[in-house]
């Protein structure tokens, strides 16, 4: 059970003066249950990439297999794929439309063809999973705070019980507290629901803290692919394409240059702290 991308190529407006090569022969294998981060600057192709994963965009050439089936096969039901691969867009709160939060979250499962009762059960589960207080459920979604709205929107996708959840910059525009709440909830769902999670982000610190695998996109290609430690070891190359490593990684490199034997591959605050304490404790 996995998703395989085989030389996926995508061009916007092919054959015209506005042609733009957004994906260049991207080949990837996404294993079940992984927590993956995707980074890349604006225009690197990361948004185009994730829209291919649930069939919203169709590759100009190349193939995508989900659980061994070719999603471009003419008998393949893309609507089924979209239920299995949930995609949360940037600023997802802009998609809310129902009169109550609960009804809005029911929208997805109902489209799936579930009965009213089953749809409500799924909505119930999803709203609980994102940690929205129950006394708010029957209010209008438009009166919530920004962070809460976003959680409702994420619940709207979760309620379809996807096997894979893709989030495009789920923390954009939120304050630190809202950001931590969302990321913690996502990490919890990854653990408890055994869901594959793909997190698109601009924040190196965030991805370093949460993901087990990191894919770096640049100019429509996969530039680096590995654990955060492996990827951030290439911090110089990342900088060349307008990205960076977490602040602590730089710090560790600078300390090493000063002759301290710290772990230069530390990517999180905890790792850095442990390594520095160890180095100084040993002295």
């Amino acid at each position: 059970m996995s998703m395989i991308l085989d030389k996926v190529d995508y061009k916007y407006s092919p054959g015209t003066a506005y042609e733009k090569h957004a994906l260049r022969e991207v080949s990837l294998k996404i294993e079940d249950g992984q927590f993956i981060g995707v980074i890349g600057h604006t225009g690197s192709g990361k948004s185009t990439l994730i829209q291919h994963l649930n069939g919203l965009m169709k590759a100009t050439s190349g193939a995508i297999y989900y659980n061994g089936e070719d999603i471009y096969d003419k008998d393949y039901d893309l609507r089924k794929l979209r239920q299995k691969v949930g995609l949360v867009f940037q600023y997802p709160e802009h998609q809310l439309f129902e009169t109550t939060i609960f009804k809005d979250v029911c929208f997805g499962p109902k489209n799936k063809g579930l009965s009213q009762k089953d749809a409500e059960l799924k909505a119930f589960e999803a709203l609980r999973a994102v940690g929205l207080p129950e006394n708010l459920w029957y209010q209008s979604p438009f009166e919530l705070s920004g962070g809460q709205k976003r959680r409702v929107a994420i619940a709207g996708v979760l309620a379809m019980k996807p096997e894979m959840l893709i989030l495009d910059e789920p923390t954009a525009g939120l304050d630190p507290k809202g950001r931590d709440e969302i990321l913690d909830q996502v990490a919890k769902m990854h653990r408890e629901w055994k869901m594959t999670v793909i997190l698109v982000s601009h924040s190196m610190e965030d991805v370093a803290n949460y993901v087990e695998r990191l894919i770096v996109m640049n100019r429509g290609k996969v530039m680096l692919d590995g654990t955060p430690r492996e990827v951030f070891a290439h911090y110089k190359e990342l900088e060349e394409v307008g990205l960076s490593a977490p602040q602590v990684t730089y710090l560790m490199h600078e300390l090493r240059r000063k002759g301290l034997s710290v772990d230069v591959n530390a990517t999180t605050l905890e790792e850095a702290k442990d390594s520095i304490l160890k180095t100084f404790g040993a002295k």
Partner: protein
Amino acid sequence: MNFIEARKLVHEYIRRDEEGNVESIQTALDHVDIDVKPGEFVAVLGHNGSGKSTFAKHLNVLLVPTEGTLWVDGKDVTEEENLWDIRKNAGMVFQNPDNQIIASVVEEDVGFGPENIGIPTEEILKRVDKSLKSVGMLEYREHSPNKLSGGQKQRVAIAGVMAMEPKCIVLDEPTAMLDPNGRKEVLDAVERLNQEKGVTIILITHYMEEVVRADRVYVMDQGKVVMEGTPREVFSQVDTLKKYRLDVPQITLLAHELRQAGMAVPKGILTRQELVEALCQ
């Protein structure tokens, strides 16, 4: 004299039902005292709902105080005849770059403010040139804003304010919707305006990394000013900041934790450089 002087500033959002009875009162600003000197770069920090944006909107008289007093450039904001003078002298940049650009061509947007205050044509053209140059967007003057990146759009918005030749620019979360490169572009432009043109800057934000460059920082929570000082003074109180749901930059946090673990690291470390030096002594 202070450019901005807020004394016991109170703002209440009052919600009324259909018959006009008061339904609820929400105190967004609760006796706020803030001073900003001419030429200063002051940051106002706080999480969403702390009242920082409400404060910002008072500086441009988009909101008026419920109680207390506020002087901008020596003028009382409650006096109607001061309105246009204040708006001209305290320009404002908002969060969403798309929703504040009025024209379909960059230079026409920058000219919008000067047109409104009745500047003669020749002078408008000069100002548009100058302001676009000051934010490094001159080469885009004939472009459509729709084709620009977020950071570029925000710099156009800043140029639009600069063209009115204000003494002060208030930026209300100007980077919240931008990617890291865009954020850096905007902050660099703001810092340059402050240092080279002496423009007073008031930056409203919830990103702690952005306030490191400021002269002074105010931290707001639940409508009150709860902390005040230089970035170093404020950042040295990591636990207090966490209490107000703010994020401390990773390096400052690391220094803080090392210190707590018993290492001899000074309080209020702001940059990597400082921490490296502290550790390598």
